[in-house]
């Protein structure tokens, strides 16, 4: 099977959907003429025209709200926020409008929009360009949140996210754009709400998403040489997360390590941990542990960022702590 990069796979997914459905349009900063920071939207303006793929001024609030108005009228906007850090400028439109309009209006509208964005760290972009804000969106009723970690998943999930009638926050980890993976030529969808077992194992369940899921797979390869057979569960969707798959894995292994790059407090890992404790307590052989970022903004200098970020070695270390309980 051919191997293409995450950004290429995403580009293919967007292109296929735009061909299929004329109500889809793309908007954001630098997406039109420039083709996006990672080439994801390259060529789309030329092929589909300015109305369907256009650049906006640096006005995140308008960008988010334009999508709400257009979606309410039957279009399917795919909006790009260059960094999830910039979504903070649009929070009212995202949280008070997009997430709530359907509910407040008693279900008479649907907002089939996608807010695509780059998140995560690893390029020394410092505090305002390195955040992982996914838990804010998971916490907001009315939003779906998706974070694919492979080329295969990003193509399948952008298609299902666009086709879904709910507002979806689509998180593309900044580290993944060049990562190559097997992607079929034929059309396929990855459903929202389904996790994937990236590696089967029996001793410990390591749960992660986006870049952390990939690092967990690498860590599992080291762990097996040390006699620990890790099962890696890639959430893929953060909301609604795949409850049966998580419980099935945990009931099998009894030991859990949850990963997130985001700061520790009130992250997705905390939610997953609580969920598992509520539903599979008897099967747990020890407490669920989390390997996360810190309650500190992302520092700039390379050794500081390296200290901050969970990596393969730390995943191995924490897995052993979980096993040792």
């Amino acid at each position, binding site marked *: 099977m051919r191997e293409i990069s995450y950004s290429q796979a995403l580009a293919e997914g967007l292109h296929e959907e735009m061909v299929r459905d004329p109500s889809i349009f793309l908007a954001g900063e630098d997406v039109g003429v420039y083709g996006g920071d990672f080439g994801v939207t390259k060529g789309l303006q030329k092929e589909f025209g300015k109305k369907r793929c256009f650049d906006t001024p640096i006005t995140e609030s308008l960008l988010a709200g334009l999508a709400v*108005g257009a979606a309410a009228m039957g279009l399917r906007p795919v909006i790009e926020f260059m960094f999830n850090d910039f979504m903070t400028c649009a929070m009212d439109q995202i949280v008070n409008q997009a997430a709530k309009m*359907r509910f407040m209006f008693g279900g008479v509208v649907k907002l089939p929009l996608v807010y695509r964005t780059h998140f995560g760290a690893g390029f020394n972009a410092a505090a305002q360009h390195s955040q992982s804000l996914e838990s804010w969106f998971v916490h907001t009723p009315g939003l779906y949140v998706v974070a694919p970690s492979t080329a295969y998943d990003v193509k399948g999930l952008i298609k299902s996210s666009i086709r879904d009638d709910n507002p979806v926050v689509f998180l593309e980890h900044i580290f993944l754009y060049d990562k190559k993976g097997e992607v079929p030529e034929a059309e396929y969808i990855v459903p929202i709400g389904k996790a994937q077992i990236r590696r089967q194992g029996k001793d410990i369940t390591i749960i992660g998403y986006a870049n952390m899921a990939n690092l967990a797979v690498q860590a599992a390869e080291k762990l097996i040489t040390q006699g620990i057979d890790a099962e890696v569960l890639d959430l893929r969707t953060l909301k609604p997360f795949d409850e049966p798959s998580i419980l099935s894995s945990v009931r099998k292994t009894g030991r859990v390590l949850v990963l997130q790059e985001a700061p520790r407090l009130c992250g997705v890992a905390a939610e997953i941990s609580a969920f598992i404790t509520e539903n599979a307590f008897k099967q747990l052989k020890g407490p669920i542990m989390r390997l996360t970022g810190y309650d500190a903004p992302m520092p700039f200098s390379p050794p500081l960022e390296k200290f901050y970020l969970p990596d393969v070695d730390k995943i191995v270390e924490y897995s052993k702590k979980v096993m040792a309980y």
Partner: protein
Amino acid sequence: MRVELELLETMTRIRNFENRVMELFADGKIPGFVHLYLGEESVAAGVCKNLRDRDIIVSNHRGHGHCIAKGASMKKMMAEIFGKSSGFCKGKGGSMHIADVGIGILGANGIVGAGLPIATGAAFSFLYHETDQVAVCFFGDGASDQGTFHESLNFASIWKLPVLYVCENNFYAESIPTKEHNNIAHISDRRHGYGIKGMTIDGNDVMKVYETSKEIIEELRKGGGPFLLECETYRWRGHFEGEPQTYRPKEEVASWKKRDPVKSFQEKLLSENIVAQEGIQEIEKKAKEEVDAAVAFAEGSPFPEPESALADVYSKSL
């Protein structure tokens, strides 16, 4: 019916509705907050008379007048305000979130300034589909300071979107007088910052509002580009019902009440022999009956089932 009578009828209906909501709220029959449109009826009536069902309005927290003028059922509005399941939003939204997308009401909104990007997005969809629909956004002088105002006008200007931004300048943003929350002579002066057309008119003159917006909307349908229409008016009540209004001089309120848009229009129509006193009374009577029926409907409707609190959060997924 002559347009003058239709305008008088709409204003009278709004006046009656809001007066009744005021009484019911004082009697403790209405949960939450209400923000009354009393004194501003001419703006909604005048603008919306020019709109079709497929045109869109986006309203704000002071939205009952806009919704009535756009054709919303008083019964379903009152039921929504009461929190009943027969309301527009099944009791999920309340006064500040009344919506009827089927007749082009893309919602009242509880966040000042939030409607502008949404209306701009709706206008974009009309450009996208190449229809002659227009979007109208109602907001106040306070909202024109919010960042969303600037971002929206800027974008609408670049794309020449079919959107009419109606600023109801009632000279107060909550408790702050206009002169203290911006430093310009007229809100419509802001049009220059965005390269769009605009003007300021007496919002209490319903014929002026109607005729001015008629021209603007006709132009919009032909691709004339966005317009900022400032309508100077005055709210008779507080920002919300129950607030003490210590920030407005009594003489100022009294002087604006003398410029009552409904009463002054009645007098004008009488003096021009467009209507007789009996005609005015008939319009009043009908409006009162309609409001009575709406209240009866609301009071007689059930509250929603508790579990419906969790319905309609998400659309059915794939």
